[in-house]
Structures are given as structure tokens and as C-alpha cells.
């Protein structure tokens, strides 16, 4: 049994024109019926596996997107729906548009289109579900090795609109490689000359996660 059989979706409109949002809702209708694949639109980040983002993300929605992303339990994937969420689309030059969901959270699947077709959207989610499965395996392995692929201490910053600074946003989420390096350094520095050097780092890794 695979966890990809029940991807629960959270949909957030980050300053889109509502075209893509209507298409996202259209996938729930009898014509497309994504519940066939076990997909449910939850509306609750704590139950969600897949974050569907529409729109180019402006300065006001960025902290919200970040918070939603942080609230979702791991493993999780992000799908950028529509060309605006991919790179800003026709709103790219606007003063308030950051230019795509990947400026705020790491995006796994890009689904272009204006507005995005429901068929493309379903394929995007199905693709994202494959990534979800991979992420779960990675998370399991990394937890065994003593670190978590997600650094929660780094992600809890810039939660309010006041201390939002676009230049620091993307850096706040480290890539997986950087996290691994960081964790290995941490393990090396805290390692004692005991037979199991990974043991102390193991505890700290679990502590971060809880």
C-alpha cells in the first residue's frame, strides 16, 4: 500500500485572478471527479499533503503561504497551478508581485496554463503524489540517520507581514543538501569518542522534529 493513494489537498489563492481557482474547484465536479484518486480538498493545512498555490504571490499573501506551508506535516509537496504561480505570468512586472510561488516556498511541480486546464491540474497532482512517496522514503531514512530533512527552527521566521523582507525569504528554507551538510557538521561537532558517534546527534534531530 502506498501513501500516494490518498493525497489530501490544500488550495490557497495567492493573489490570482480567480481563473485558476475556478479550475481547481472544477476538478471536484462530477465531470472530472478527483475523488476517484482519493483526492480530497481539505481546507485544513494540518490534514493536507499537497499545497496547491495559484497566483503570483504578493507581499501580503507571502507570509500566509509560508505559514500554511509550515503548518503542513511532512512529507508534503507544493504544486504551482497556472503560469502566475509558476513565474508571475502577466502580473510579473507589477510592483507588489513577487513572481511565482517558488519565491516563497519550495515548489515541486509546475503546472502552466492560463487558466490551467483541469486535466493538466490532475496530472500535476498525480506527479506530485509520486514526489510525495519519494519524500516519505527520504524522510524515513534521514530520521533513521539522525537528522530531519526539514529544519523547523529556520522555517518559523517571517510569519507576520511587518518583518517580511523579500531578500531573505527564500534563504530561510534550506535545500536538502544544505540541511544534510548542516546535520553532518552538527553530528561531527557533538560526537564523542564513544562507539556510536551518531547517538547524541540522533536525540537532537528528534527533538527538532517534535
Amino acid at each position: 500500500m502506498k501513501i500516494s493513494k490518498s493525497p489530501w489537498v490544500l488550495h490557497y489563492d495567492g493573489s490570482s485572478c480567480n481563473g485558476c481557482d475556478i479550475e481547481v474547484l472544477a476538478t471536484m465536479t462530477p465531470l472530472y471527479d478527483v475523488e476517484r484518486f482519493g483526492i480530497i480538498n481539505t481546507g485544513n493545512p494540518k490534514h493536507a499533503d499537497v499545497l496547491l498555490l495559484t497566483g503570483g504571490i504578493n507581499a501580503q499573501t507571502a507570509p500566509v503561504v509560508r505559514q500554511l506551508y509550515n503548518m503542513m506535516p511532512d512529507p508534503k509537496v507544493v504544486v504551482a497551478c497556472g503560469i502566475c504561480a509558476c513565474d508571475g505570468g502577466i502580473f510579473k512586472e507589477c510592483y507588489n508581485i513577487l513572481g511565482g510561488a517558488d519565491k516563497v516556498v519550495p515548489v515541486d511541480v509546475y503546472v502552466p496554463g492560463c487558466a490551467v486546464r483541469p486535466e493538466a491540474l490532475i496530472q500535476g497532482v498525480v506527479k506530485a503524489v509520486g514526489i510525495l512517496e519519494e519524500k516519505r522514503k527520504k524522510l524515513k531514512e534521514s530520521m533513521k540517520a539522525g537528522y530531519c530533512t526539514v529544519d523547523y527552527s529556520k522555517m518559523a521566521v517571517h510569519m507576520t507581514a511587518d518583518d517580511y523582507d523579500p531578500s531573505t525569504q527564500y534563504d530561510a528554507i534550506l535545500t536538502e543538501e544544505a540541511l544534510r551538510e548542516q546535520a553532518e557538521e552538527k553530528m561531527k561537532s557533538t560526537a564523542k569518542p564513544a562507539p556510536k558517534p551518531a547517538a547524541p546527534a540522533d536525540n537532537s534531530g528528534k527533538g527538532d522534529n517534535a
Partner: protein
Amino acid sequence: MTVSIIIKALLYVLLAPFVGGLLSGIDRVFSARMQGRQGPPVFQPFYDVYKLLNKQTTVVNGIQVLFVTAYLIFTVFTGALFFAGGDMLLVFFALSMSEVMMVLAAFSTNGPYSIMGAQRELLQMMCYEPMTLLVAIGFYYANGSFMVNDLIHASVPAIVQIPGFFIGFVFILIIKLRKSPFDLSTSHHMHQEMVKGLTTDLSGGNLARVEIAEWYDTVLMMGIVGMFFITNNPISILWAVIACSVVFFLETLIDNLFPRVKYITMLKVTWAVILVFAGTNLLILNVLK
């Protein structure tokens, strides 16, 4: 005697999740077909719970884990007591206890949606608790015992004497199974004013435990529906199964037909139904005996 009781309880503990999960899956398929959709596979609830068990569990307040686990344990205990042939009164009291545990779990998270869900759950309990107690009393009037073991050896099915209680119980099942006109505390459908109510702040393993507890609960409720038809004649089991299927289908139909109501409407309607049907039935039984 004791061995058979333990075997019955064990059978319930082992089999109920499968039956309950299947019922939940059938419910989802029926709902989808009623809306003109194909719907998920029948085993979808099992996939969901498997997924939830493999997700990270974020805990808002440590005590929430204790309450959710207690909810599961109390629900399993209640069902095991019922199917092992225990005391109906104790079954219903333990059932309220399990609900209280769920409410406490929601209150302990301190989230606005959870607290709203918990408060509404308390209101729902106020609506259906009188009926659950009355069902136990009705069975006592019909067969002169609170013990499930004695009730299943009746010569005449209980429904003959207490049809009013049956109608009242089927009515409060809408609340117990969290179906639409009265699903105030947790919305099973997306984008409603209270997100997911009671379970909003539960994730991963905790949510999986709540789902499993609800499966156990569904089986217990269907068991009580079956109790109205069981006699010492083995054929009556068939009648009980048919009655359970009809009631379950009816609940799904009601779920898809009605929009949600305000709590005050729920309170008025449920108490009116209980008073009219169960109350009148109780009076008639009192006069006849």
C-alpha cells in the same frame, strides 16, 4: 461462559475496524453516486488511515495525545462490552465518556476552530444523550433486563414493543454518525466555516486514531440498531442485518439531501422527535404493563 465473552469481545476488537472502514467506504461511494460522481474506491478509508499513520504527527499540546488515545480506548471498550453481552446502561455511559474525551482533546489544543467544534459537540451530546438513555430503558421495558445477553434471547423482537424508541434512535444516529443536517461539530465537506471542527488541530497518527475510533463507533451503533430485531430465532440475524443496511443507506441519503441547520434547530427537532416518539411509546408501555 467467561471464555465465550472474551472471544466475542476479541472478535469485535479485531473485526470491527474492517467492517467500520468498509461501511465508511461504502458511504463515500454511495454519496458520490448520489451526486453523479464515480467516487473513490471502497477501500479508500483504509488508504487514508494508512497515509495518516505514515505522516508526521504535529502535536499542539502534549495532553491531546492522551485524550485522543483515551477516546479510542473508551470507544473500543464500549463496543467490546456491548458485543460481549454486557450491561446496556454501562455501554451508554462509557460511550458518553469516550465523547467527553474527544471534546477534551479538542479543547486542549486551544485553536479557535477546535474549541468551536468542541462546544458544538457538547451541544450535540445534549441533543442525543436523552435518547441513548431512553433506548436502554426501552429495552428494559420490552424484555425486563439491561443485559445484552438476555435481550438477544427474547422470544419477540423488541421493535414490536418499542417502535417509537427505534425511530428516535435512528433519528439521533444522524448526529452520532456525523451526517449532514446535524454535522455541526465536524464538517466532513470542504470549506465550511469551521474548517474541520473537532479534528482541526489533530494531524498524522492522532487523526488516524480518531478515524479508527469512529469506525468502531459505527459498528457499535449498527449493533444497537440490530438489537431491535434480534430474537432467539437464528433467522432474526438476517432481519437485523437488513435493518442495519436500510438504516445506514437512509443516513447516507439524509446526509446528501439536507443542508446543515443551526444548533437551536437541531436541539428543538431532536428533542421534539424524542418526546413524541419515544415519550409516547414509553407512556403506552407504562399503561399496558
